């Protein structure tokens, strides 16, 4: 995923209304009109939030007659969460290595003695 897309995903999810929309879409597809009824903001307001989610690739829209149906697209979220797994493993092993080298410095090692500060 290009950088722009990931940035867009995070920006899209930073807003509580957009997170609430995602929360509703988790339970199934819905129309823009049905969404607008659930939020205390205007239809246009909801529509703008939906457009941000679409640009981020989090929501797909299909038009059936006069209805605009929305579907959750979880792939960008899955991609973003892989970053976390990479770094969790990375930092866990780095902190273990940090402990090892500091503990080793306390052990007398005549054969490989290092100058101390």
């Amino acid at each position, binding site marked *: 995923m290009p950088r722009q897309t990931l940035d867009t995903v995070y920006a899209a999810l930073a807003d509580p209304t957009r*997170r609430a929309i995602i929360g509703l879409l988790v339970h199934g597809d819905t129309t823009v009109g049905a969404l607008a009824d659930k939020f205390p903001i205007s239809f246009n307001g909801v529509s703008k939030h939906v457009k941000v989610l679409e640009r981020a690739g989090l929501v797909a829209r299909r038009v059936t007659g006069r209805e605009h149906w929305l579907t959750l697209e979880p792939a960008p979220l899955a991609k973003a969460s892989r970053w976390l797994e990479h770094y969790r493993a990375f930092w866990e092993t780095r902190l273990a290595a940090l402990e090892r080298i*500091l503990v080793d410095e306390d052990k007398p090692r005549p054969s490989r003695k290092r100058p101390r500060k």
Partner: protein
Amino acid sequence: MTQLVVRRLIPIDRERVFDAWLDPARLARFMCPTTAKRATADVDPRVGGRFRIVMFHPEVDANGVVHTGEYLLIDRPSRLAFTWESQFTEGITTVVTIDFIERGTSTEVVLTHDRLPPQALEAHRRGWTDILGLLGESAG
């Protein structure tokens, strides 16, 4: 999803644990992954100064994997924060904050890695857990 926290209790006093992060020789040693042959570290340990760590994985990239960042906060021996950029962060600046908490003669290291630029951190900090819970429900 945008933040991870890793903790470890290290049986060493806070000053030594903290100082290891700003000492290029020690930093190069503990930042060297087991899959890498060696790592080098250059640091300019002041707020606004930068560090550069290069990890050499001969089978991946002979030129080394470069990790760079800028020190945002240096509060010895309790807190250190720096930006973190590498090919694994896909060009996005991320922020690592490390808290060093005294636990008797040991130190609890709490490392938080946020994937957002610092000015956006506070605004983004809340509200992720609910989304992830819902997505977990959806996937399960």
